[in-house]
């Protein structure tokens, strides 16, 4: 059973999978196949510091090259097909590769803007890889007019980085408000105000109808009929799971590769982890695109591969840096029916606590790490503080914590 493990997708989830596999059994043969040329690197800085400063791959690597000693590394090699019956993979270069067990860490890709809407014009970017970031960074020149399509974290981070580099920025959000899918109206309000103060023009409930230009993008037509001259465009309208490989191998997919709480697909020899995996959480099937999820699932997959029975029961966490504001999020606030806003200890700090009934679901902390860390410990312990106590800024948050141990 403990034969050759092949991991497809050399990213965040793969690294933690390798780490866990090795600590369980240092001699087990591991092959890592990745379609990018690079060793696994961190993506979060690509929309943050990397757009403002020189990009150095060394500082982005999740682990140094030497860490992979003993791993059969196949970088720059995409997997084209999984043949489950024969237990082998077909690589893009035609090579075949046998596996005993397989972990799919395929990640996700940016949802593109359709060709008919001008998505293939030069100057139109999506941001997912180091190559994308380098291309975009080269286009960030002071005075240029940037259009950002999409008011999620990625779009807002790009807008912040662009303002810091002296570009003018127009940001469109087709939904009713920015951060509509991921955060409360209160959190969104904070970020809207902050961006407006920095000179970003945000238009909500406004979509993009089309981009046009000779070869390079020159003009954007918005759903309100207005037209704008633009020099470059970033499309930040969400991610799509890389699930086709699994679907072609007749594994179940639904907004991602469907796995159980142990990261297992219906094929006992195939597991999936990270951005590409849809898993059960709190009675629904979800897919999370975050570093926390990728590293924790990578580890769970590894331990279940070696016969473990671990279930993934995460306290999800995420962060976003914009200008000098730090947002830290713990939990998932989707189903909340009320929020409590708590002022922080410093002027620019506050936290937003999401409840469903009396149950704490999530905390957004704005420049307020202590509330974030306390929220994290409360959620990990399954303890909900009283809303009244959270609202009372004179009551120290630490009083709400369960005893350690």
């Amino acid at each position: 059973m403990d034969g050759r493990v092949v991991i497809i997708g050399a990213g965040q989830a793969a690294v933690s999978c390798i780490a866990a596999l090795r600590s369980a059994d240092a001699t087990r043969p591991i092959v890592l196949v990745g379609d990018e040329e690079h060793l696994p690197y961190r993506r979060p800085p690509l929309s943050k510091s990397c757009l403002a400063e020189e990009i150095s791959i060394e500082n982005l690597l999740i682990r140094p090259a030497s860490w992979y000693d003993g791993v059969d590394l196949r970088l720059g090699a995409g997997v084209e097909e999984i043949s489950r019956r024969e237990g082998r993979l077909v690589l893009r270069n035609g090579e075949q590769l046998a596996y005993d067990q397989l972990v799919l860490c395929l990640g996700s890709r940016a949802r593109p803007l359709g060709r008919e809407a001008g998505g293939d014009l030069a100057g139109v970017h999506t941001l997912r890889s180091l190559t994308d970031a380098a291309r975009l960074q080269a286009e960030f020149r002071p005075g240029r007019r940037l259009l950002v399509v999409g008011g999620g974290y990625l779009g807002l981070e790009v807008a912040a980085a662009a303002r810091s580099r002296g570009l003018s920025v127009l940001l469109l959000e087709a939904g009713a408000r920015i951060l509509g899918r991921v955060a409360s109206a209160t959190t969104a309000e904070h970020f809207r105000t902050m961006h407006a103060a920095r000179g970003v023009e945000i238009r909500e409930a406004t979509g993009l109808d089309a981009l046009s230009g000779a070869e390079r993008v020159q003009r954007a037509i918005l759903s309100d009929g207005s037209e704008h001259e633009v020099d470059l465009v970033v499309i930040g309208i969400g991610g799509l799971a890389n699930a086709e490989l699994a679907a072609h191998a007749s594994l179940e997919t639904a907004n991602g590769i469907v796995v159980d709480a142990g990261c297992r697909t219906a094929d006992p020899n195939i597991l999936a982890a990270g951005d590409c995996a849809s898993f059960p959480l709190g009675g629904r099937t979800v897919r999370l695109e975050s570093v926390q999820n990728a590293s924790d699932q990578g580890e769970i997959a590894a331990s279940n591969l070696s016969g473990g029975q671990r279930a993934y029961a995460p306290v999800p966490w995420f962060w976003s840096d914009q200008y000098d504001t730090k947002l830290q999020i713990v939990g998932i606030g989707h189903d909340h029916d009320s929020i409590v806003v708590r002022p922080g200890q410093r002027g620019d700090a506050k936290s937003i606590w999401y409840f469903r009934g009396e149950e704490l679901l999530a905390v957004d902390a704005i420049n307020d790490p202590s509330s974030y860390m306390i929220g994290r410990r409360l959620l990990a312990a399954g303890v909900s503080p009283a809303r009244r106590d959270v609202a009372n800024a004179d009551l120290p948050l630490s009083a709400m914590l369960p005893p350690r141990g």
Partner: protein
Amino acid sequence: MPQITWLSADGTETSADVATGTNLMEAAVAAGVRGIHGDCGGALACATCHVATDLAWAERLGSPGIMEDEMLDMIDGERTPTSRLSCQILARAELDGLVLDVPGPA
């Protein structure tokens, strides 16, 4: 380039010459130090870059920033009087010979 040494909880010792200006979480990850993960890449969001040192070095390192201090207060493991988040420390000449304990699990 100052030389930095990390003592991991599992007994491994790692030393590296670190270019001035590099943060000590990145340097640790680059050197393969066990127990330093740096999940958030230095964004003060994960606390997986926790280190501690002796008092003499702690004085030379200076005190943690406000946000760093708040993160440390609420850390999962034990905070010690000299705890720091290593992503917030930049290598500089005066830190040559620095020895850091890594309390986190490998």
